[in-house]
């Protein structure tokens, strides 16, 4: 270790590093939720999916010895949760928000139950790529240790934005999300589209969970998620249902979360409870600033039960 004294520069550096480290679960869950909501359903159960994904990813990685098999298992588990949500919600008179809350509690309960034997063992970690080779400063090198899943998340963000904008699949998801009647008249089956979109969204949330348990902070226990899944669902609304905005919102939340510890580390130590509330204050501020009586929720999918 050869640390250089950075002074106050440590704060922006920590925020960049924190944004990269902490944002990945937010990114995956919000991309998944973005896809699901674009198809006209809300899956509030992604917090449960995230926790279950974290547990199953950790457990499978430990048993198999490969972190990537763990990620795959987390995606599969998340997809099952998504499919279950999609299947139940197609039944008549079922409220997707209520099912989501039930699935959130179920996912967490199942994860705690099956995860008990995996609190102690150490599973292999996901690899990271070092982008800090150009700098001699060890803090910069540490901050620029970028996990592969984060890079995959960036690719997914761009791909999903492109998919919604220009591809036929994107058009189908958007039509189903905006008007069930229009989709039916086009010969589409909205329930099937929503089932698939919820399943894919669940898989992404599961991967987000695997990032928590397999890379950062990198171990499974019952207090692993402090509501990241729920916050990510809110991020989608904040990001106005755009995948690219989801990415920026996830980075913002990751960076803001690193602000509190970083400020304390440079000696600005009083009022840390206030700094820890920074992400939420920021969200409120941005939502108020960007809202308007004329164009609020303009890009919201028309079939969402919260906007109808």
């Amino acid at each position: 270790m050869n640390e250089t004294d950075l002074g106050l520069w440590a704060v922006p550096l920590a925020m960049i590093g924190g944004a990269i480290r902490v944002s990945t679960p937010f990114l995956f869950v919000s991309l998944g939720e973005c896809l699901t909501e674009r198809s006209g359903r809300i899956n509030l159960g992604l917090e449960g999916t995230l926790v279950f994904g974290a547990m199953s990813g950790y457990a499978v990685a430990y048993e198999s010895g490969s972190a990537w098999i763990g990620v795959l298992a987390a995606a599969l588990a998340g997809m099952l949760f998504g499919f279950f949500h999609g299947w139940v919600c197609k039944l008549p008179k079922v409220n997707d928000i209520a099912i989501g809350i039930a699935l959130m509690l179920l996912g967490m309960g199942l994860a705690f139950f099956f995860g008990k034997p995996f609190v102690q063992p150490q599973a292999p970690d996901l690899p990271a790529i070092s982008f800090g080779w150009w700098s001699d400063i060890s803090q910069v090198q540490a901050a620029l240790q970028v996990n592969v899943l984060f890079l995959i998340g960036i690719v997914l963000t761009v791909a999903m934005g492109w998919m919604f904008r220009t591809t036929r699949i994107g058009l189908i998801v958007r039509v189903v999300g905006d008007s069930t009647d229009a989709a039916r008249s086009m010969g589409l089956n909205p329930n099937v589209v929503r089932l698939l979109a919820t399943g894919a969204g669940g898989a992404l949330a599961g991967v987000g969970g695997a990032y928590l348990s397999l890379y950062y902070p990198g171990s499974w226990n019952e207090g692993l998620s402090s509501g990241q899944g729920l916050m990510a669902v809110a991020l989608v609304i904040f990001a106005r249902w755009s995948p690219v905005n989801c990415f920026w919102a996830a980075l913002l939340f990751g960076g803001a979360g690193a602000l509190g510890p970083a400020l304390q580390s440079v000696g600005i130590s009083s009022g840390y409870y206030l700094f820890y509330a920074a992400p939420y204050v920021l969200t409120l501020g941005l939502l108020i600033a960007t809202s308007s009586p004329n164009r609020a929720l303009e890009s919201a999918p028309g079939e969402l039960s919260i906007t109808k």
Partner: protein
Amino acid sequence: MNRRTISRRSLLKAGAATGALAAASALPFGAAHAADLTVGFIYVGPKDDFGYNQAHAEGAAAVKEMAGVTVVEEENVPETVAVQKSMESMINFDGASLMFPTSFGYFDPHILAVAPKHPDVRFQHAGGLWSADKHPKNAGSYFGYIGLGQYLNGITAGHATKSKKIGFVAAKPIPQVLMNINSFLLGARAVDPTITCQVIFTGEWSLAVKEAEATNALADQGCDVITCHVDGPKVVVETAAGRGAFVCGYHADQSPLAPAKYLTGAEWNWANVYTGMVKTMMSGGTIDNFVRGGLSDGFVKMSPLGPAVSDTARNQFEAAKAEIMKGGFLIIKGPINDNKGNVIAPAGKAFAEDDIALESMDYLVEGVIGSTS
């Protein structure tokens, strides 16, 4: 079948008869096992968290080995009215007559609400301040002077640090946490008085991501030995070792998590304390309402020294430990100021480890970088 034969009155009678039968059959059962003891343990988190709860659960496991003792346990019980329900259930359904609700926040108001309803049940609480004029006689408080464990941690840290900066990830600024931070620094300053200790408070007992962020922030500032006071030190230990820093453990032995970087650790020795209390209860004695002890009393122990501890460090560690084992070690010695410049103790005044004044500590000593609010 004629439905009229079952009237509401006869149904009630039948119900009462069944109840009486159940009560009658329960009585001899209770009497036959009068010499036995059922002990209830309640944890605020998972009991295998490499931390606070695991330390208590290891104590419970030792009690379970004793003849004639039944142990009932419940984990992940929040510090809310939920713990009152858990206690009532253990007392009423499992017949527990000795309770160990182990989390700090269980005492007031939860134990204070349940204890008066069950005068024949003994409630032992870790860390709470029991006082004879305010609190029920069947409740008691016990705790260990683990600050001296952090002092010994600090000695190994003082020898291991090259940057002369050591780090502490802390949950909340309560007296026991502040005592640990101050002791860690004072231990390190016994090696080199220029060492400083950076503290970061996370605000909660268990917040994995924030603990990892705090550890990274400390490493970014050049802290090359890191310890913590959070419920589950696993994340801090793994993250710190991943950044190349040495670690000192807390609560339980975390050396398997970072074998090369682990210097030593301050551990609870609840197995010794709990088996002693259960023996007292079973032999018909009463446990003191206010029990405290340190290294010399077997309340606290140290992890075996890791491979990175040098011989000079080992010698100073062993010498300090031998001094502490004599009891009455003076941990805060004047002249000493807090980190805002106020005098804590003038020259000639000192606080021993068992000084009750230390249990309401609200300052960080000079050399600690951080603030309590």
